[in-house]
Protein backbone atom coordinates (compact mmCIF):
# COMPACT_ATOMS: atom_id res chain seq x y z
CA UNK A 1 0.00 0.00 0.00
CA UNK A 2 2.78 2.40 0.89
CA UNK A 3 4.58 1.48 -2.33
CA UNK A 4 1.44 2.23 -4.35
CA UNK A 5 1.02 5.52 -2.54
CA UNK A 6 4.68 6.27 -3.15
CA UNK A 7 4.19 6.01 -6.90
CA UNK A 8 0.88 7.85 -6.84
CA UNK A 9 2.47 10.60 -4.78
CA UNK A 10 4.70 11.39 -7.75
CA UNK A 11 2.11 12.33 -10.34
CA UNK A 12 4.81 14.08 -12.37
CA UNK A 13 6.24 10.69 -13.23
CA UNK A 14 3.00 9.91 -15.00
CA UNK A 15 3.41 12.87 -17.29
CA UNK A 16 6.64 11.41 -18.66
CA UNK A 17 5.05 7.97 -18.92
CA UNK A 18 2.12 9.59 -20.71
CA UNK A 19 4.43 11.42 -23.10
CA UNK A 20 6.18 8.13 -23.90
CA UNK A 21 2.91 6.25 -24.44
CA UNK A 22 1.55 8.94 -26.72
CA UNK A 23 4.78 9.02 -28.73
CA UNK A 24 4.78 5.21 -29.08
CA UNK A 25 1.15 5.31 -30.22
CA UNK A 26 1.99 7.93 -32.83
CA UNK A 27 5.00 6.07 -34.26
CA UNK A 28 3.10 2.78 -34.23
CA UNK A 29 0.53 4.49 -36.42
CA UNK A 30 3.20 5.82 -38.81
CA UNK A 31 5.10 2.49 -38.61
CA UNK A 32 8.17 4.12 -37.15
CA UNK A 33 8.31 6.84 -39.78
CA UNK A 34 9.34 10.23 -38.43
CA UNK A 35 9.92 8.99 -34.87
CA UNK A 36 12.99 11.19 -34.36
CA UNK A 37 11.53 14.20 -36.11
CA UNK A 38 8.52 13.99 -33.85
CA UNK A 39 10.72 14.26 -30.78
CA UNK A 40 12.68 17.17 -32.22
CA UNK A 41 9.46 19.03 -33.01
CA UNK A 42 7.98 18.19 -29.62
CA UNK A 43 11.08 19.46 -27.84
CA UNK A 44 11.04 22.71 -29.85
CA UNK A 45 7.41 23.44 -29.00
CA UNK A 46 7.55 22.16 -25.42
CA UNK A 47 10.25 24.75 -24.67
CA UNK A 48 7.75 27.59 -24.88
CA UNK A 49 5.32 25.85 -22.54
CA UNK A 50 8.09 25.09 -20.05
CA UNK A 51 9.30 28.71 -19.94
CA UNK A 52 5.87 30.12 -19.05
CA UNK A 53 5.00 27.01 -17.08
CA UNK A 54 7.85 27.60 -14.65
CA UNK A 55 6.76 31.19 -14.05
CA UNK A 56 3.16 30.09 -13.59
CA UNK A 57 4.31 27.31 -11.25
CA UNK A 58 5.93 29.75 -8.83
CA UNK A 59 2.82 31.94 -8.90
CA UNK A 60 0.38 29.05 -8.36
CA UNK A 61 2.54 27.70 -5.53
CA UNK A 62 1.91 30.95 -3.63
CA UNK A 63 -1.50 29.57 -2.71
CA UNK A 64 -5.13 29.43 -3.82
CA UNK A 65 -6.25 32.32 -6.00
CA UNK A 66 -2.76 33.09 -7.21
CA UNK A 67 -2.55 32.71 -10.94
CA UNK A 68 -1.12 34.88 -13.71
CA UNK A 69 -3.80 35.39 -16.35
CA UNK A 70 -1.86 38.20 -18.03
CA UNK A 71 0.65 35.83 -19.66
CA UNK A 72 -0.95 35.69 -23.14
CA UNK A 73 -1.17 39.48 -23.42
CA UNK A 74 2.30 39.79 -21.93
CA UNK A 75 3.75 37.35 -24.50
CA UNK A 76 2.03 39.19 -27.34
CA UNK A 77 3.36 42.58 -26.26
CA UNK A 78 6.88 41.27 -25.61
CA UNK A 79 7.01 39.66 -29.05
CA UNK A 80 6.20 43.04 -30.60
CA UNK A 81 8.67 44.90 -28.36
CA UNK A 82 11.43 42.44 -29.19
CA UNK A 83 10.86 42.61 -32.94
CA UNK A 84 10.63 46.41 -32.98
CA UNK A 85 13.76 46.86 -30.91
CA UNK A 86 15.77 44.34 -32.89
CA UNK A 87 14.50 45.95 -36.11
CA UNK A 88 15.80 43.05 -38.15
CA UNK A 89 19.42 43.73 -37.33
CA UNK A 90 21.67 41.09 -35.74
CA UNK A 91 23.56 43.68 -33.73
CA UNK A 92 20.43 44.61 -31.79
CA UNK A 93 19.47 41.08 -30.69
CA UNK A 94 20.78 41.46 -27.13
CA UNK A 95 19.12 44.86 -26.73
CA UNK A 96 15.85 43.46 -28.06
CA UNK A 97 15.95 40.54 -25.65
CA UNK A 98 16.59 42.89 -22.74
CA UNK A 99 13.70 45.08 -23.91
CA UNK A 100 11.36 42.08 -24.03
CA UNK A 101 12.46 40.97 -20.58
CA UNK A 102 11.97 44.52 -19.28
CA UNK A 103 8.49 44.69 -20.81
CA UNK A 104 7.60 41.40 -19.09
CA UNK A 105 9.10 42.52 -15.78
CA UNK A 106 7.17 45.81 -15.95
CA UNK A 107 3.95 43.86 -16.41
CA UNK A 108 4.84 41.69 -13.43
CA UNK A 109 5.43 44.81 -11.33
CA UNK A 110 2.12 46.31 -12.47
CA UNK A 111 0.32 43.07 -11.62
CA UNK A 112 1.72 43.01 -8.13
CA UNK A 113 0.97 46.70 -7.59
CA UNK A 114 -2.68 46.03 -8.42
CA UNK A 115 -2.80 43.04 -6.09
CA UNK A 116 -1.03 44.82 -3.26
CA UNK A 117 -2.31 48.38 -3.47
CA UNK A 118 -5.91 47.62 -4.40
CA UNK A 119 -6.14 44.26 -2.61
CA UNK A 120 -7.69 42.79 -5.73
CA UNK A 121 -7.62 38.98 -5.92
CA UNK A 122 -4.68 38.11 -8.22
CA UNK A 123 -6.93 36.32 -10.69
CA UNK A 124 -8.94 39.52 -11.31
CA UNK A 125 -5.92 41.83 -11.09
CA UNK A 126 -3.96 39.95 -13.75
CA UNK A 127 -7.12 39.64 -15.83
CA UNK A 128 -7.83 43.38 -15.78
CA UNK A 129 -4.16 44.08 -16.46
CA UNK A 130 -4.24 41.72 -19.42
CA UNK A 131 -7.08 43.76 -20.98
CA UNK A 132 -4.99 46.90 -20.79
CA UNK A 133 -1.82 45.17 -22.03
CA UNK A 134 -3.80 43.75 -24.93
CA UNK A 135 -4.88 47.25 -25.95
CA UNK A 136 -1.33 48.57 -25.65
CA UNK A 137 -0.18 45.71 -27.85
CA UNK A 138 -2.89 46.21 -30.47
CA UNK A 139 -2.05 49.89 -30.69
CA UNK A 140 1.75 49.45 -30.49
CA UNK A 141 2.05 46.46 -32.76
CA UNK A 142 -0.47 47.55 -35.38
CA UNK A 143 0.54 46.31 -38.80
CA UNK A 144 3.88 45.26 -37.41
CA UNK A 145 5.58 43.09 -40.01
CA UNK A 146 9.18 43.09 -38.89
CA UNK A 147 10.99 39.84 -39.40
CA UNK A 148 13.37 38.76 -36.65
CA UNK A 149 17.07 39.31 -37.37
CA UNK A 150 18.37 36.28 -39.31
CA UNK A 151 20.87 35.48 -36.57
CA UNK A 152 18.16 35.42 -33.89
CA UNK A 153 15.76 33.34 -36.00
CA UNK A 154 18.54 30.83 -36.72
CA UNK A 155 19.44 30.74 -33.02
CA UNK A 156 15.89 29.83 -32.00
CA UNK A 157 15.82 27.08 -34.64
CA UNK A 158 19.33 25.73 -34.04
CA UNK A 159 19.63 21.98 -33.44
CA UNK A 160 22.41 19.59 -32.43
CA UNK A 161 21.79 16.03 -33.60
CA UNK A 162 18.05 16.64 -33.51
CA UNK A 163 18.06 18.31 -30.10
CA UNK A 164 17.09 21.99 -30.31
CA UNK A 165 19.57 24.34 -28.62
CA UNK A 166 16.66 26.11 -26.92
CA UNK A 167 15.57 22.81 -25.38
CA UNK A 168 19.05 22.30 -23.90
CA UNK A 169 19.10 25.84 -22.51
CA UNK A 170 15.58 25.48 -21.14
CA UNK A 171 16.51 22.18 -19.50
CA UNK A 172 19.44 23.94 -17.80
CA UNK A 173 17.09 26.74 -16.79
CA UNK A 174 14.62 24.21 -15.38
CA UNK A 175 17.41 22.69 -13.28
CA UNK A 176 18.27 26.17 -12.00
CA UNK A 177 14.59 26.76 -11.21
CA UNK A 178 14.46 23.45 -9.35
CA UNK A 179 17.47 24.46 -7.26
CA UNK A 180 15.91 27.87 -6.64
CA UNK A 181 12.71 26.20 -5.51
CA UNK A 182 14.19 23.59 -3.19
CA UNK A 183 17.51 25.02 -2.07
CA UNK A 184 17.16 28.78 -1.80
CA UNK A 185 15.49 30.92 0.82
CA UNK A 186 13.33 32.44 -1.90
CA UNK A 187 12.03 29.08 -3.11
CA UNK A 188 11.40 27.77 0.37
CA UNK A 189 9.55 30.99 1.19
CA UNK A 190 7.27 30.58 -1.84
CA UNK A 191 6.35 27.07 -0.74
CA UNK A 192 5.89 28.18 2.87
CA UNK A 193 3.56 31.00 1.86
CA UNK A 194 1.56 28.57 -0.26
CA UNK A 195 1.14 26.21 2.67
CA UNK A 196 0.09 28.86 5.14
CA UNK A 197 0.59 32.53 4.41
CA UNK A 198 -0.11 33.58 7.99
CA UNK A 199 2.28 31.06 9.51
CA UNK A 200 4.92 32.13 7.00
CA UNK A 201 4.37 35.76 7.95
CA UNK A 202 4.61 34.97 11.66
CA UNK A 203 7.81 33.03 10.97
CA UNK A 204 9.32 36.26 9.70
CA UNK A 205 9.12 35.62 5.97
CA UNK A 206 8.69 38.84 4.04
CA UNK A 207 5.50 37.66 2.36
CA UNK A 208 4.99 40.82 0.31
CA UNK A 209 8.51 40.83 -1.07
CA UNK A 210 8.40 37.14 -2.02
CA UNK A 211 5.07 37.55 -3.79
CA UNK A 212 6.40 40.62 -5.59
CA UNK A 213 9.48 38.72 -6.82
CA UNK A 214 7.28 35.84 -7.94
CA UNK A 215 4.94 37.96 -10.04
CA UNK A 216 7.88 39.81 -11.58
CA UNK A 217 9.55 36.47 -12.32
CA UNK A 218 6.42 35.19 -14.04
CA UNK A 219 6.10 38.41 -16.03
CA UNK A 220 9.76 38.34 -17.05
CA UNK A 221 9.51 34.74 -18.23
CA UNK A 222 6.42 35.72 -20.22
CA UNK A 223 8.49 38.47 -21.85
CA UNK A 224 11.29 36.03 -22.65
CA UNK A 225 8.79 33.62 -24.13
CA UNK A 226 7.37 36.36 -26.34
CA UNK A 227 10.79 37.17 -27.78
CA UNK A 228 11.63 33.49 -28.36
CA UNK A 229 8.27 32.78 -29.99
CA UNK A 230 8.68 35.74 -32.33
CA UNK A 231 12.09 34.39 -33.31
CA UNK A 232 10.89 30.83 -33.79
CA UNK A 233 7.75 31.71 -35.74
CA UNK A 234 9.48 34.53 -37.64
CA UNK A 235 7.45 37.49 -36.54
CA UNK A 236 5.43 39.11 -33.75
CA UNK A 237 1.69 38.74 -33.45
CA UNK A 238 -0.98 39.97 -31.03
CA UNK A 239 -2.39 36.45 -30.73
CA UNK A 240 0.95 34.67 -30.50
CA UNK A 241 0.53 33.99 -26.78
CA UNK A 242 -3.16 33.05 -26.70
CA UNK A 243 -2.74 29.31 -26.28
CA UNK A 244 -0.36 29.80 -23.37
CA UNK A 245 -3.07 30.86 -20.90
CA UNK A 246 -4.61 27.44 -20.56
CA UNK A 247 -1.41 25.61 -21.50
CA UNK A 248 0.62 27.26 -18.75
CA UNK A 249 -1.93 26.26 -16.10
CA UNK A 250 -2.38 22.78 -17.57
CA UNK A 251 1.34 21.90 -17.61
CA UNK A 252 1.78 23.11 -14.05
CA UNK A 253 -1.08 20.98 -12.75
CA UNK A 254 -0.51 17.89 -14.87
CA UNK A 255 3.13 18.15 -13.81
CA UNK A 256 2.16 17.50 -10.21
CA UNK A 257 2.16 21.01 -8.74
CA UNK A 258 -0.71 21.49 -6.30
CA UNK A 259 -3.33 24.03 -7.40
CA UNK A 260 -3.93 24.69 -3.73
CA UNK A 261 -0.36 25.95 -3.48
CA UNK A 262 2.52 24.96 -1.26
CA UNK A 263 3.73 22.07 -3.37
CA UNK A 264 5.64 22.55 -6.60
CA UNK A 265 7.38 20.33 -9.07
CA UNK A 266 9.77 21.40 -11.81
CA UNK A 267 10.56 18.16 -13.73
CA UNK A 268 6.81 17.54 -14.04
CA UNK A 269 6.50 20.70 -16.12
CA UNK A 270 8.84 19.23 -18.73
CA UNK A 271 6.95 15.94 -18.66
CA UNK A 272 3.57 17.61 -18.96
CA UNK A 273 4.70 19.94 -21.76
CA UNK A 274 6.13 17.05 -23.79
CA UNK A 275 2.98 15.07 -23.07
CA UNK A 276 0.64 17.81 -24.30
CA UNK A 277 2.70 18.57 -27.41
CA UNK A 278 3.09 14.89 -28.29
CA UNK A 279 -0.61 14.31 -27.68
CA UNK A 280 -1.41 16.96 -30.28
CA UNK A 281 1.21 15.46 -32.61
CA UNK A 282 -0.35 12.03 -32.20
CA UNK A 283 -3.85 13.31 -32.89
CA UNK A 284 -2.53 15.14 -35.93
CA UNK A 285 -0.90 11.98 -37.31
CA UNK A 286 -4.18 10.15 -36.76
CA UNK A 287 -5.69 12.86 -38.93
CA UNK A 288 -8.60 13.70 -36.61
CA UNK A 289 -10.53 16.95 -36.94
CA UNK A 290 -9.94 20.02 -34.78
CA UNK A 291 -13.09 19.30 -32.77
CA UNK A 292 -12.05 15.75 -31.86
CA UNK A 293 -8.56 17.01 -31.01
CA UNK A 294 -9.99 19.49 -28.50
CA UNK A 295 -12.37 16.96 -26.95
CA UNK A 296 -9.58 14.40 -26.52
CA UNK A 297 -7.19 17.01 -25.06
CA UNK A 298 -9.84 18.04 -22.54
CA UNK A 299 -10.72 14.48 -21.55
CA UNK A 300 -7.02 13.66 -21.16
CA UNK A 301 -6.49 16.63 -18.83
CA UNK A 302 -9.45 15.49 -16.72
CA UNK A 303 -8.32 11.86 -16.90
CA UNK A 304 -4.84 12.77 -15.70
CA UNK A 305 -6.10 14.74 -12.71
CA UNK A 306 -8.60 12.01 -11.77
CA UNK A 307 -5.92 9.32 -12.05
CA UNK A 308 -3.39 11.37 -10.12
CA UNK A 309 -6.03 11.86 -7.46
CA UNK A 310 -6.86 15.04 -5.64
CA UNK A 311 -4.81 16.27 -2.75
CA UNK A 312 -6.19 15.43 0.63
CA UNK A 313 -7.48 18.71 1.95
CA UNK A 314 -4.54 20.64 3.35
CA UNK A 315 -5.64 23.23 5.81
Amino acid at each position, binding site marked *: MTAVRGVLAKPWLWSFVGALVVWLAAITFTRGYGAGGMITAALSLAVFMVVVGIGQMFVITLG*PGNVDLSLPANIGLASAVAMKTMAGSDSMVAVGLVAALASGAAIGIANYLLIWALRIPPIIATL*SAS*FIIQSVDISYG*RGLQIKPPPGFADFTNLQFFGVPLLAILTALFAIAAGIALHRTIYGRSVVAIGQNARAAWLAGIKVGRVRFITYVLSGTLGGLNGALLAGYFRGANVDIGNEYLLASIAVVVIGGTSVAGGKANVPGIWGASLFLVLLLTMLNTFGVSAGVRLVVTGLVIIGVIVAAG*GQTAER
Partner: protein
Amino acid sequence: MSAATEAGRRPAIFASMTLPRAVRAALPALSLSLILIAIAYLNPRAMSYFGFHLMLNLAIPIALATLAQMFILTVNELDLSIGTFVGFVGCVTATWLRDAPLLGVAALLGCIGVYALLGALIYLRNLPSIVVTLGMSFVWQGLAILLLPKPGGKAPEWLLGLTGLKPPFVPFPIVAAIVIAVVVHIGLMRTSYGAILRGAGGNPNAIARAGWSLLKTKIAMFTLAGIFGVLSGLALIGITTSADANIGNGYTLLSIAGVILGGGEFVGGRVSPIGAVMGALTLALAASPLLTFMHIPPDWQVGANGAILIIVLAARALISRREG
Protein backbone atom coordinates in the same frame (compact mmCIF):
# COMPACT_ATOMS: atom_id res chain seq x y z
CA MET B 1 -3.58 34.16 -0.62
CA SER B 2 -5.01 37.56 0.02
CA ALA B 3 -8.60 36.75 0.99
CA ALA B 4 -7.50 34.13 3.49
CA THR B 5 -4.82 36.31 5.05
CA GLU B 6 -7.11 39.30 5.20
CA ALA B 7 -9.75 37.31 6.98
CA GLY B 8 -7.10 36.10 9.38
CA ARG B 9 -5.70 39.53 10.03
CA ARG B 10 -8.93 41.39 10.59
CA PRO B 11 -11.52 39.92 12.91
CA ALA B 12 -14.62 40.04 10.75
CA ILE B 13 -16.97 39.84 13.72
CA PHE B 14 -16.40 43.46 14.62
CA ALA B 15 -17.49 44.66 11.21
CA SER B 16 -21.07 43.52 11.48
CA MET B 17 -23.04 46.36 9.92
CA THR B 18 -21.02 49.52 9.94
CA LEU B 19 -21.56 52.35 7.49
CA PRO B 20 -18.71 51.37 5.14
CA ARG B 21 -20.15 47.87 5.01
CA ALA B 22 -23.50 49.23 3.87
CA VAL B 23 -21.69 51.36 1.29
CA ARG B 24 -19.85 48.28 0.17
CA ALA B 25 -23.09 46.38 -0.28
CA ALA B 26 -24.39 49.29 -2.34
CA LEU B 27 -21.24 49.47 -4.44
CA PRO B 28 -22.47 47.30 -7.35
CA ALA B 29 -25.54 49.54 -7.64
CA LEU B 30 -23.32 52.59 -7.34
CA SER B 31 -20.98 51.53 -10.14
CA LEU B 32 -23.93 50.62 -12.36
CA SER B 33 -25.51 54.04 -11.78
CA LEU B 34 -22.20 55.75 -12.48
CA ILE B 35 -21.94 54.03 -15.85
CA LEU B 36 -25.57 54.89 -16.62
CA ILE B 37 -25.04 58.54 -15.66
CA ALA B 38 -21.94 58.66 -17.87
CA ILE B 39 -23.93 57.24 -20.79
CA ALA B 40 -26.82 59.64 -20.14
CA TYR B 41 -24.39 62.56 -20.07
CA LEU B 42 -22.59 61.52 -23.24
CA ASN B 43 -25.65 60.58 -25.20
CA PRO B 44 -29.03 61.57 -23.70
CA ARG B 45 -30.86 59.92 -26.58
CA ALA B 46 -29.67 56.50 -25.41
CA MET B 47 -31.88 56.89 -22.33
CA SER B 48 -35.01 55.71 -24.08
CA TYR B 49 -37.07 52.52 -24.23
CA PHE B 50 -35.40 51.49 -27.46
CA GLY B 51 -31.96 52.62 -26.36
CA PHE B 52 -32.06 50.47 -23.25
CA HIS B 53 -33.38 47.56 -25.27
CA LEU B 54 -30.37 47.76 -27.57
CA MET B 55 -27.77 48.49 -24.91
CA LEU B 56 -28.86 45.84 -22.44
CA ASN B 57 -29.91 43.05 -24.79
CA LEU B 58 -26.56 41.28 -24.65
CA ALA B 59 -26.36 41.82 -20.90
CA ILE B 60 -28.96 39.13 -20.23
CA PRO B 61 -26.89 36.14 -21.36
CA ILE B 62 -23.91 37.65 -19.54
CA ALA B 63 -25.99 38.01 -16.36
CA LEU B 64 -27.14 34.39 -16.60
CA ALA B 65 -23.59 33.15 -17.13
CA THR B 66 -22.44 35.31 -14.21
CA LEU B 67 -25.05 33.70 -11.96
CA ALA B 68 -23.90 30.27 -13.13
CA GLN B 69 -20.35 31.22 -12.13
CA MET B 70 -21.67 32.60 -8.85
CA PHE B 71 -23.23 29.25 -7.88
CA ILE B 72 -19.86 27.58 -8.43
CA LEU B 73 -17.96 30.27 -6.52
CA THR B 74 -20.41 29.90 -3.61
CA VAL B 75 -19.01 26.45 -2.88
CA ASN B 76 -15.41 27.68 -3.27
CA GLU B 77 -14.88 26.30 -6.76
CA LEU B 78 -14.18 28.05 -10.05
CA ASP B 79 -15.61 27.26 -13.48
CA LEU B 80 -13.21 27.98 -16.33
CA SER B 81 -15.49 26.23 -18.82
CA ILE B 82 -18.67 28.30 -18.54
CA GLY B 83 -17.79 30.35 -21.66
CA THR B 84 -17.26 27.43 -24.00
CA PHE B 85 -20.24 25.70 -22.36
CA VAL B 86 -22.49 28.64 -23.26
CA GLY B 87 -21.01 28.46 -26.77
CA PHE B 88 -21.83 24.75 -27.07
CA VAL B 89 -25.37 25.28 -25.78
CA GLY B 90 -25.68 28.04 -28.38
CA CYS B 91 -24.64 25.64 -31.13
CA VAL B 92 -27.14 23.01 -29.94
CA THR B 93 -29.86 25.66 -29.80
CA ALA B 94 -29.21 26.92 -33.32
CA THR B 95 -29.10 23.43 -34.84
CA TRP B 96 -30.73 20.48 -33.04
CA LEU B 97 -33.21 22.42 -30.94
CA ARG B 98 -34.65 23.89 -34.14
CA ASP B 99 -34.44 20.89 -36.45
CA ALA B 100 -35.02 18.06 -33.96
CA PRO B 101 -36.47 19.57 -30.78
CA LEU B 102 -36.58 16.25 -28.93
CA LEU B 103 -32.89 15.57 -29.55
CA GLY B 104 -32.08 19.19 -28.70
CA VAL B 105 -33.91 19.09 -25.37
CA ALA B 106 -32.29 15.76 -24.55
CA ALA B 107 -28.84 17.18 -25.36
CA LEU B 108 -29.39 20.24 -23.16
CA LEU B 109 -30.65 18.08 -20.28
CA GLY B 110 -27.61 15.89 -20.81
CA CYS B 111 -25.39 18.97 -20.50
CA ILE B 112 -26.95 19.79 -17.14
CA GLY B 113 -26.41 16.17 -16.13
CA VAL B 114 -22.72 16.49 -17.04
CA TYR B 115 -22.47 19.50 -14.74
CA ALA B 116 -24.07 17.52 -11.89
CA LEU B 117 -21.58 14.70 -12.50
CA LEU B 118 -18.68 17.16 -12.47
CA GLY B 119 -19.82 18.43 -9.09
CA ALA B 120 -19.95 14.88 -7.74
CA LEU B 121 -16.58 13.97 -9.27
CA ILE B 122 -14.89 17.09 -7.91
CA TYR B 123 -16.23 16.41 -4.42
CA LEU B 124 -15.71 12.66 -4.28
CA ARG B 125 -12.17 12.64 -5.67
CA ASN B 126 -11.32 15.98 -4.05
CA LEU B 127 -10.16 17.38 -7.40
CA PRO B 128 -9.16 20.98 -8.10
CA SER B 129 -12.14 22.39 -9.99
CA ILE B 130 -9.87 24.76 -11.95
CA VAL B 131 -8.23 21.80 -13.68
CA VAL B 132 -11.39 19.78 -14.24
CA THR B 133 -13.24 22.74 -15.75
CA LEU B 134 -10.13 23.68 -17.73
CA GLY B 135 -10.35 20.24 -19.31
CA MET B 136 -14.10 20.64 -19.82
CA SER B 137 -13.55 23.96 -21.59
CA PHE B 138 -11.62 22.06 -24.28
CA VAL B 139 -14.33 19.39 -24.42
CA TRP B 140 -17.23 21.85 -24.88
CA GLN B 141 -15.28 23.83 -27.47
CA GLY B 142 -14.44 20.65 -29.36
CA LEU B 143 -18.05 19.47 -29.30
CA ALA B 144 -19.22 22.89 -30.49
CA ILE B 145 -16.81 22.78 -33.43
CA LEU B 146 -17.91 19.25 -34.30
CA LEU B 147 -21.56 20.29 -34.20
CA LEU B 148 -21.14 23.57 -36.05
CA PRO B 149 -17.82 23.74 -37.92
CA LYS B 150 -18.79 27.04 -39.56
CA PRO B 151 -20.76 29.90 -38.04
CA GLY B 152 -24.42 29.46 -38.87
CA GLY B 153 -27.58 27.74 -37.75
CA LYS B 154 -30.73 29.57 -36.80
CA ALA B 155 -32.55 30.19 -33.57
CA PRO B 156 -35.92 28.41 -33.10
CA GLU B 157 -38.91 30.69 -33.77
CA TRP B 158 -40.32 30.47 -30.24
CA LEU B 159 -37.00 31.63 -28.83
CA LEU B 160 -36.85 34.61 -31.19
CA GLY B 161 -40.38 35.48 -30.16
CA LEU B 162 -39.42 35.34 -26.50
CA THR B 163 -36.33 37.54 -26.71
CA GLY B 164 -38.11 39.92 -29.07
CA LEU B 165 -40.83 40.67 -26.52
CA LYS B 166 -41.69 44.34 -26.13
CA PRO B 167 -43.46 44.77 -22.80
CA PRO B 168 -45.07 48.18 -22.15
CA PHE B 169 -43.01 50.95 -20.47
CA VAL B 170 -40.07 48.85 -19.28
CA PRO B 171 -37.74 47.30 -21.89
CA PHE B 172 -37.56 43.51 -21.86
CA PRO B 173 -33.89 43.18 -20.81
CA ILE B 174 -34.57 45.22 -17.66
CA VAL B 175 -37.64 43.14 -16.80
CA ALA B 176 -35.65 39.96 -17.41
CA ALA B 177 -32.72 41.16 -15.29
CA ILE B 178 -34.97 42.05 -12.37
CA VAL B 179 -36.90 38.77 -12.54
CA ILE B 180 -33.71 36.71 -12.72
CA ALA B 181 -32.05 38.60 -9.87
CA VAL B 182 -35.09 38.40 -7.58
CA VAL B 183 -35.72 34.71 -8.24
CA VAL B 184 -32.12 33.74 -7.50
CA HIS B 185 -31.98 36.09 -4.52
CA ILE B 186 -35.04 34.49 -2.94
CA GLY B 187 -33.84 30.97 -3.72
CA LEU B 188 -30.30 31.36 -2.47
CA MET B 189 -30.53 34.06 0.19
CA ARG B 190 -34.01 33.64 1.67
CA THR B 191 -34.70 29.91 1.78
CA SER B 192 -33.33 27.55 4.41
CA TYR B 193 -31.67 25.24 1.89
CA GLY B 194 -30.13 28.31 0.26
CA ALA B 195 -28.47 29.07 3.58
CA ILE B 196 -27.16 25.49 3.71
CA LEU B 197 -25.79 25.85 0.18
CA ARG B 198 -23.98 29.07 1.10
CA GLY B 199 -22.83 27.51 4.34
CA ALA B 200 -21.23 24.70 2.36
CA GLY B 201 -18.90 27.38 1.03
CA GLY B 202 -18.52 29.32 4.25
CA ASN B 203 -17.90 26.50 6.68
CA PRO B 204 -18.18 23.07 5.10
CA ASN B 205 -17.21 21.27 8.31
CA ALA B 206 -20.03 22.85 10.28
CA ILE B 207 -22.55 21.98 7.58
CA ALA B 208 -21.31 18.39 7.43
CA ARG B 209 -21.45 18.02 11.23
CA ALA B 210 -24.99 19.37 11.22
CA GLY B 211 -25.87 16.34 9.15
CA TRP B 212 -26.11 17.83 5.68
CA SER B 213 -24.55 16.05 2.74
CA LEU B 214 -21.73 18.12 1.23
CA LEU B 215 -21.93 15.89 -1.82
CA LYS B 216 -25.51 16.95 -2.38
CA THR B 217 -24.73 20.65 -1.94
CA LYS B 218 -21.88 20.38 -4.47
CA ILE B 219 -24.13 18.55 -6.94
CA ALA B 220 -26.95 21.06 -6.37
CA MET B 221 -24.70 24.04 -7.06
CA PHE B 222 -23.13 22.52 -10.17
CA THR B 223 -26.58 21.52 -11.46
CA LEU B 224 -27.80 25.08 -10.94
CA ALA B 225 -24.73 26.35 -12.78
CA GLY B 226 -25.51 23.97 -15.63
CA ILE B 227 -29.12 25.18 -15.78
CA PHE B 228 -28.11 28.84 -15.84
CA GLY B 229 -25.40 28.09 -18.40
CA VAL B 230 -28.07 26.54 -20.64
CA LEU B 231 -30.38 29.54 -20.09
CA SER B 232 -27.50 31.86 -20.98
CA GLY B 233 -26.85 29.99 -24.22
CA LEU B 234 -30.56 30.06 -25.10
CA ALA B 235 -30.80 33.79 -24.41
CA LEU B 236 -27.64 34.49 -26.39
CA ILE B 237 -28.90 32.65 -29.48
CA GLY B 238 -32.33 34.27 -29.10
CA ILE B 239 -30.60 37.64 -29.46
CA THR B 240 -27.91 36.88 -32.03
CA THR B 241 -30.26 34.55 -34.02
CA SER B 242 -27.37 32.37 -35.23
CA ALA B 243 -24.47 30.57 -33.57
CA ASP B 244 -20.72 30.20 -33.81
CA ALA B 245 -18.54 27.70 -31.96
CA ASN B 246 -16.55 30.55 -30.37
CA ILE B 247 -19.55 32.72 -29.49
CA GLY B 248 -19.31 32.28 -25.73
CA ASN B 249 -15.54 32.21 -25.22
CA GLY B 250 -15.34 35.64 -23.60
CA TYR B 251 -17.97 34.72 -21.03
CA THR B 252 -15.66 32.79 -18.73
CA LEU B 253 -13.65 35.83 -17.72
CA LEU B 254 -16.67 38.17 -17.92
CA SER B 255 -18.62 35.93 -15.55
CA ILE B 256 -15.83 35.83 -12.96
CA ALA B 257 -15.38 39.59 -13.18
CA GLY B 258 -19.16 40.07 -12.89
CA VAL B 259 -19.41 38.07 -9.65
CA ILE B 260 -16.47 39.91 -8.08
CA LEU B 261 -17.76 43.28 -9.28
CA GLY B 262 -21.09 42.36 -7.71
CA GLY B 263 -19.51 41.97 -4.29
CA GLY B 264 -18.88 38.22 -4.34
CA GLU B 265 -15.78 36.63 -2.86
CA PHE B 266 -13.66 33.78 -4.20
CA VAL B 267 -13.94 31.80 -1.00
CA GLY B 268 -16.27 31.59 1.93
CA GLY B 269 -19.70 31.43 0.30
CA ARG B 270 -20.02 35.22 0.34
CA VAL B 271 -22.00 36.00 -2.79
CA SER B 272 -24.78 38.32 -3.84
CA PRO B 273 -27.13 37.35 -6.68
CA ILE B 274 -28.51 40.88 -7.11
CA GLY B 275 -24.97 42.26 -7.02
CA ALA B 276 -23.84 39.69 -9.58
CA VAL B 277 -26.60 40.68 -12.00
CA MET B 278 -25.70 44.35 -11.53
CA GLY B 279 -22.03 43.48 -12.03
CA ALA B 280 -22.91 41.77 -15.30
CA LEU B 281 -25.00 44.76 -16.45
CA THR B 282 -22.15 47.13 -15.54
CA LEU B 283 -19.68 45.07 -17.53
CA ALA B 284 -22.01 44.79 -20.49
CA LEU B 285 -22.65 48.55 -20.53
CA ALA B 286 -19.00 49.41 -19.97
CA ALA B 287 -17.98 46.96 -22.68
CA SER B 288 -19.42 48.75 -25.67
CA PRO B 289 -22.17 51.40 -25.35
CA LEU B 290 -20.21 53.62 -22.95
CA LEU B 291 -17.00 53.34 -24.92
CA THR B 292 -18.74 54.02 -28.20
CA PHE B 293 -20.27 57.17 -26.77
CA MET B 294 -16.92 58.22 -25.34
CA HIS B 295 -15.42 57.89 -28.83
CA ILE B 296 -12.71 55.59 -27.60
CA PRO B 297 -10.89 54.12 -30.61
CA PRO B 298 -11.47 50.37 -31.09
CA ASP B 299 -7.81 49.65 -30.29
CA TRP B 300 -8.28 50.86 -26.74
CA GLN B 301 -11.75 49.48 -25.99
CA VAL B 302 -10.49 46.32 -24.33
CA GLY B 303 -8.02 48.38 -22.34
CA ALA B 304 -10.70 50.84 -21.23
CA ASN B 305 -12.70 47.85 -20.06
CA GLY B 306 -9.80 46.69 -17.95
CA ALA B 307 -9.35 50.20 -16.57
CA ILE B 308 -13.02 50.44 -15.58
CA LEU B 309 -12.75 47.09 -13.83
CA ILE B 310 -9.68 48.27 -11.92
CA ILE B 311 -11.30 51.58 -10.93
CA VAL B 312 -14.41 49.86 -9.54
CA LEU B 313 -12.31 47.33 -7.65
CA ALA B 314 -10.08 50.10 -6.33
CA ALA B 315 -13.14 51.90 -4.96
CA ARG B 316 -14.22 48.68 -3.32
CA ALA B 317 -10.79 48.12 -1.80
CA LEU B 318 -10.82 51.64 -0.40
CA ILE B 319 -14.19 51.10 1.23
CA SER B 320 -13.51 47.64 2.59
CA ARG B 321 -10.21 48.82 4.04
CA ARG B 322 -12.18 51.19 6.23
CA GLU B 323 -14.58 48.39 7.03
CA GLY B 324 -12.04 46.66 9.28
